[in-house]
């Protein structure tokens, strides 16, 4: 009897967990497919599929451009973080030198900076480099979050690779660059895919810098575009369109998370950093 009770309790808890996690997304999809005044009637189930909001979103605004911007910024950030992170992790994970622990701690400390605390300094830096209102400026600024995290995860990973492989390569006369590119790189792909994916998500989702360091509609990234989306009149929020935009930028991420779930969990817990 208690076995059945326990099982029913577990089933109930799992159902609750699923509803809690998925209902807001479900409801956003539902709203995004309502048309006109249909948005303003509360419904729990879909009655008709109307993609008008999606059409209006891509036809009437710069939303397509914003998506492209986000893809470009995120790709740049991932590439730069992985390149800088990999070489640094090789040194931090494999070579013993003075001040290594201190450097690792400093890198970790950077990931604790409140974003606002670097805002005015970053603003003058980006303006000084002539990168204000450009995607390059955003990509540069995003290294603040992605680089410390990439370095930490890759260092942890590289430390756990067997030393023997490296020693054998040294015996064969391989230099540090050869070791990194020919020996470590092939072994590092799983870790790089994970950190790259998380860095991509961080860059895709970032809001404060994107809001502050861009000025024109054509330079916006998707979170800013969604936050600033307005309808025909300034006082009436186009909820159907906002939900269509939300679903559009979220579904690719959800798909990625579902596919790479195991890797993501491993990466997040290994680095134990913010998402």
């Amino acid at each position: 009897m208690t076995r059945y009770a326990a099982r029913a309790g577990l089933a109930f808890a799992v159902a609750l967990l699923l509803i809690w996690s998925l209902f807001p997304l479900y409801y956003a999809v539902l709203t995004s497919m309502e048309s006109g005044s249909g948005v303003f009637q509360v419904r729990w189930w879909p009655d008709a599929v109307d993609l008008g909001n999606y059409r209006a979103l891509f036809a009437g605004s710069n939303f397509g451009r914003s998506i492209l911007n986000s893809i470009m910024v995120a790709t740049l950030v991932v590439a730069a973080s992985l390149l800088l992170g990999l070489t640094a992790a090789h040194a931090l994970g494999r070579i013993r030198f003075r001040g290594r622990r201190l450097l690792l701690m400093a890198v970790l400390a950077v990931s604790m900076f409140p974003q606002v605390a670097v805002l005015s300094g970053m603003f003058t830096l980006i303006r000084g480099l002539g990168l204000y209102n450009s995607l390059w400026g955003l990509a540069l600024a995003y290294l603040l979050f992605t680089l410390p995290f990439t370095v930490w995860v890759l260092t942890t990973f590289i430390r756990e690779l067997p030393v023997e492989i490296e020693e054998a390569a040294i015996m064969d006369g391989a230099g540090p660059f050869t070791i990194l590119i020919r020996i470590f790189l092939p072994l590092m792909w799983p870790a790089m895919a994970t950190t790259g994916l998380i860095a991509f998500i961080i860059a895709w989702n970032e809001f404060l810098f994107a809001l502050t360091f861009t000025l024109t509609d054509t330079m916006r990234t998707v979170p800013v575009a969604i936050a600033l989306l307005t309808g025909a009149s300034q006082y009436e929020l186009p909820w159907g369109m906002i939900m269509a935009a939300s679903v559009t930028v979220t579904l690719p991420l959800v798909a990625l998370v579902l596919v790479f779930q195991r890797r993501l969990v491993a990466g997040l817990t290994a680095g134990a950093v913010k998402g």
Partner: protein
Amino acid sequence: MIGAVMRRPRSLQATAALFLSPMVLALAVVAVWPLARTIWFGFTDASLTAPADYTLVGLANYLEVYDGAWYGVLADPQWWQALRNTLVFAAASVTAETVLGVGMALVLNARFPGRGLVRAAVLVPWAIPTVVSAKMWAWMLHDQFGIINAGAMALGLIDRPMAWLASSDTAMLSVILVDVWKTTPFVALLTLAALQTVPRDCYEAARVDGIPPWRVFLHITLPLIRPALAVAVVFRLLDALRVFDVVYVMTGEAEATMTLSIHARQQLVQFQDMGYGSASATLLFLVIGLVTVAYLAVLRPDRAASGQRMAGHAGEAGG
């Protein structure tokens, strides 16, 4: 340990420097320099429109007496309100996330069909951009057309729609709710990773001895997952103290929910007052530093370090 290290120390040192310098340079440019500049601007009267054109004003942005009246961030009632809001937000959301996260992890750690899929589903709120979650919830909490009002009225919990985000009592509750929704999966994942390292025979022995489950949890599970939980709490606390997106998108610069980050950005960008805004931002940096140090001191640093290691290893086991 590594024979080669002993044999060619000098060239290896050079290699380390070569490999590290791009990363160190990048972090100096995007982190150290901007932070130093912000702290510096806090002592000036710089404005956002002409940041190069300023004079040093000492501590005037922080606190100054002029004609018997106090000025500066520390005499600004709005800043103190923002500090209160931030501390309330951080305390409430981190507590709720920790409790719910452990509960979620215990459910996910049980054996049931489709467990992999449920674990993936739980990650969905974490992956959704904060701005999007804020918008989704703002829509669900809409005073006239929101599904939460409709549902609560259908269940007889309230008799007329509530303006969740407009009323100052419920606005804070709403932003905390959204933050908890979004970040509980993170705590749950770290906890789950730690749970998977708890040896099974502990539970076997407890069952044989007939110890009730809640005592097993309190005396076996909880002490073992404590280090990992501490790491999760530190990271969440740091995040909650610097919160910006969710509050800004849901309630804008409303006083009832204004956090320290929003206050600093408002001074900086909205009012173009770079000196004052930088002073406010520097104070946030100090508040976060103080809270972190206090938390780590309470926790003892050696435990925090072992928690970090444990979370790392558990991650590999869980993946």
